[in-house]
Every structure is written in C-alpha cells, then in structure tokens.
C-alpha cells in the first residue's frame, strides 16, 4: 500500500471519519539530472548568501515574506502554522453536489483515502452513503500550509479525494488577446466538421493512449550512448491556409476508408468497441 501522506478526519455534520491520504497517481516521466556540458560533471545547487557571497548551511536559512522591495518579514515554521488554525487536521465537508456540475478545470490532484485508526466502520458507512446518493462532498482542508478545496467521492471500492482550485485562481478570458475569425464558419463547414467528430467518436478507454514519447526518448538516449548523431527534426508544414471545407471533406474520406470495417458510421453507442481499437487490430 502506498504510504500515507496525511492523517486526519473527514467531518460532515457531527460525524467524524478518521482517514489517511494516499497519492492516487505517480509520474512515469523520465527524469534527468543536470550535468555540465563541458566536462559532464554533476551540477550541485549551493545556497549562497547574497551579501556575503558565501555558501551557508541550511541551519542558517529562514523563511521571509517580502513586504516591500528588499524588506522581509521572517516567520518561523510555528508562526506559519498558526494560519492553519485549530482545524488543520479536519477535512470539513460543507456541501454535497452532483459530480457532473463540477467543471473539470477545477480538479487538481487525486488521492485515495483509507480508514484511519478505528475508523473502518465510519469509512465504509461514508463510502456506502456517497455511492448510494451519487453525490460528491465538497469541503476544505489545509495540507502543507496551504488550503485546498476538495471533492470527496466514492469509487467502486474506496473513497477518493481530489484537491481542487479556488475560483480566484483562474485566469480570465479577458486577460488574453483573442483574434476574432475573419469570417464565421458556414453552416456547411460546421455540419461537415460534425460528421468528422462523429467518425472519430469513441468511448474513453485510457489504456488505448500509451505514452510513446517515453520510449522515443529512451531510444534517443540509446543512440546517443552509441555515439550516433541525432538529426534535427525537419520543420513541419504549417497550417493549410483557407480551403477549410476541402480539408474537412478530405479528412472525412480518409477516415471513412479506415473505418469501414469497424461498422457503420453511426455515432458511438455504449456497447460497441471503440473504433480506434478495432482499427489497430485490423480485420481480426
């Protein structure tokens, strides 16, 4: 079992459910270390005092908040923790909502909850109640000196917790300069585009999307280790100017050929296998 990152209590009404928090995800990205190009040596990060221009030990480092240019207020760990308040170990579930009302942009990180000490019965009760009601609990809690909006929901066998973003963390569309189209798309273009959407319709099967870049990078590493030169990529042809409709029609034709075997062109229905798969499996 992944080790727990946090121990605390879910509170809703006067009910307390002791829980432990575990990460539900792990990164599979290839990680690199910084090396010096000229001699291949390791790069070390040194903490240097700007005033004295010398390296300082970690024991002499404190946290400061810049209140104005070059003027800092130093806070100890304990003083920073004061802001966490007395409720720091409680996930306070304030409301319950329908999950589909939550814009996906709010979700941040996913965790699994396991029962805390003597909390198995309460945990299973909450799990069963969330599942039966089909609702998602919304609350707040403090984790790593930061408050998080959270969603608590039942998966098939465990309770999941998602940290979410607060509404004021979003960038407004108005902050971006967005060029308006020179011409609105015509009805014919929209209809044709929609046909293409229907042709590419599938059900979401996460394991059909593999991270192939990882292997591509490992391949480059292998070639480089053998001393091969890595060619600079050819620059891609950029967008097709104009001719939107003909590009759409050509796409439809191309995809139509590839899909004929996968059945009718009808929009996906839940029972059928996703087209992407039937296509890669060929005529099997």
């Amino acid at each position, binding site marked *: *079992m992944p080790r727990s990152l946090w121990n605390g209590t879910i509170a809703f009404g006067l*009910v*307390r459910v*002791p829980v432990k928090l*575990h990460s*539900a995800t792990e990164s*599979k990205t290839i990680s*690199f270390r910084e090396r010096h190009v000229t*001699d*291949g040596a390791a790069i070390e*990060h040194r*903490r*240097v*005092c700007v005033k004295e221009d010398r390296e300082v030990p970690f024991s002499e480092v*404190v*946290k400061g908040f810049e*209140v104005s240019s070059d003027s*800092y207020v*130093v*806070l100890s760990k304990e003083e920073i923790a*004061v*802001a966490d308040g*007395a409720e*720091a170990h409680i996930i306070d579930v*304030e409301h*319950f*909502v329908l999950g589909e009302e*939550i814009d996906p*942009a709010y*979700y941040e990180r996913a965790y699994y909850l*396991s*029962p805390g000490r003597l909390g198995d*019965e309460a945990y299973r*009760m909450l799990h069963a*109640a969330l599942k039966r009601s089909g*609702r998602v609990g919304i609350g707040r809690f403090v984790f790593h000196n930061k*408050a998080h*909006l959270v*969603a608590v929901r039942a998966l098939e*066998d465990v309770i*999941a917790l998602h940290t979410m973003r607060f*509404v*004021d963390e979003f960038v407004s569309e108005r*902050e*971006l300069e967005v*060029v308006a189209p020179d011409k*609105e798309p015509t009805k014919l273009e929209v209809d044709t*585009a929609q046909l293409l*959407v*229907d042709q590419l319709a599938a059900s979401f099967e996460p394991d059909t999307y593999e991270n192939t*870049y990882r292997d591509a990078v490992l391949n480059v*590493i292998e070639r*480089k280790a053998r001393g091969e030169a890595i060619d600079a*990529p050819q620059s891609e042809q950029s*967008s*097709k100017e104009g001719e939107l409709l003909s590009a759409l029609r*050509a*796409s*439809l034709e191309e995809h139509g050929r590839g899909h004929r075997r996968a059945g009718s062109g009808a929009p996906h229905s839940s029972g059928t296998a996703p087209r*992407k798969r039937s296509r890669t499996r060929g005529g099997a």
Partner: protein
Amino acid sequence: MARSLWSGSVSFGLVNVPVQLYSAVRDRGVHFKQLHEPDGSPIETRRVCAHDEKEVPWDEIAKGYELDDGRWVLLSDADLDAAAPRKSHTIDIESFVEEREIDPIFLERPYLLVPANESAARAYALLGEAMRSSEKVALGRFVMRAKEHLVSIRPRGDLLTLTTMRFHDEVRASAEIAESIDAAAEPTREQIENAVAIIEELEVPFDPTLYRDEHRAHLQRVIKRKQKGQKIAAPPPRSRPTPTAPDLMGALQESLARIRGEAAGKQAEGATAKKQSKKARSAPPASRPSGSRAKH
C-alpha cells in the same frame, strides 16, 4: 498579457489550427523566500560544477541520464525535440468522447488555447462549434517541456480549454487500499440511511464562489502582525482524537436533528419556501438552498 507556454497546432483530420497555449490558472499562494538568518540577506541558489567548483551558466547545463553501467548520456533540448518532432509541435486529435466518461482522477492542469492568427480563428471556431453541437470533447496527445501529455480539449465560452491528463499507467490501482479496509466493520443499514439523509440535506448546486481560500488571508494577517512587531502565539496543541471508536449512530442522528432544525427555522421565516426547492436543479447556481427565497 500572459506569456504563451507553447505554440503549435491542433490537428483535426487534415485541418490544422495554429494555436498558442496559456495557463488557465495562476498561483495565488503566499510565497516565502529563503533568507540568511544572521544578516537577513536573501539566499541565492547557484549551480556549481562539482568538478571545477565554478558557477555554471544555464547554457552549459544539459539533461543527464544515467545508464545502467553508470555512464551518463547528455541530451540537449534539440535531441529531445528529435525524439518526437511531430508531437512537439502538433496536438493530434485522435478521438472524441463524452465528457462524463473521463474520470476526474485523470485530470491534471487546465490551459487555454488561443488561435494564432485570423485565419486560424475560423478553423478554431469551427472545431469549438462541432464539439459543442455533438456534445463531445476531443482527446489527443502532445509533447510540452520534454513530457508527453494526454489531453482533452473542450469548448468553454468563446475559447477552447485544454486539460492535461495522466496516462493510465500513472494512475495507481486502488485494490491494495480496498483490501486494507476491515471487512468485519460493517455499518448498519440504518447508519447508511442516516448518512444518505444528511447528504441530501446538505445538497446544493455546485457553486465555486461559495468557497474562498481563507487560509491565504489568515497567513497574510499573521505576516502583518509580525511586521508590526507583535508576538505570534503558538497554535494550541492539537487535541488528540479519541482513542475509542466514535458513536456513529449518535453523531448521525444529532447531525440530522440540527440540520433539519436549522432548515425548519429558516422555513418558518419564508412562508412559501419549500424544502423541495433545493432539488430543483434549474435553480440559479449562486442562490443558497432552502429558505433564501424571501416572501414577496
């Protein structure tokens, strides 16, 4: 205007839409700097070559990968680009799926896509319109900052938003956690029914403006007090949770009695307010449930 993090195109069939990618969120957290305690001077992190002890400028730093035999392979950004030239510049839309099929566990970070120029804007609008009318979201993959991302693209307002997602092998299985739950600690049917009743009483339409980050404000107040030279009292010691199993049934019934008592109190104020009104999902999202409708 914010800085674009990536530029390339969204490819949809044979249609290419040149776009720029911006973060849809910004960090609002309170951040601290490292200071040197004896003299209050800021701390700088310097990158130093372990070999010659000299500071190394950015352009002399490569990405190193250690082989099994202990040798290091150094890669440049161009090498990484060469690993997947198309994916580094194109988001290929591979399929369209229903939004509700995507479990939130896959979601990672939201971005905004903006058309790169006028002629791109038309194809951009077309893609948005087609997704809107078919009620589907697009799925694709691309490479940004030496990392491949599975992404979903959906129309929101006038813009297309892109959400990076985790690959299936980056989501852990929940089985181990499920197995750790004590099978003997079974809740009673009555407990579950009471818990469901509480959930129903506390149900509202999702309204993100109801939830503010109060912690941020608390922390800013602590900083202000410290700045004025006030003493920051240590937080009270955390009360230890009771070492016995909590009285679940008692807590459930007491919660229900209180919530219903409050609701009844509010209803008494509003003569026509009905409890069922909170179930009306078409109610304006900002309004608080039950009792907030004043008599006319």
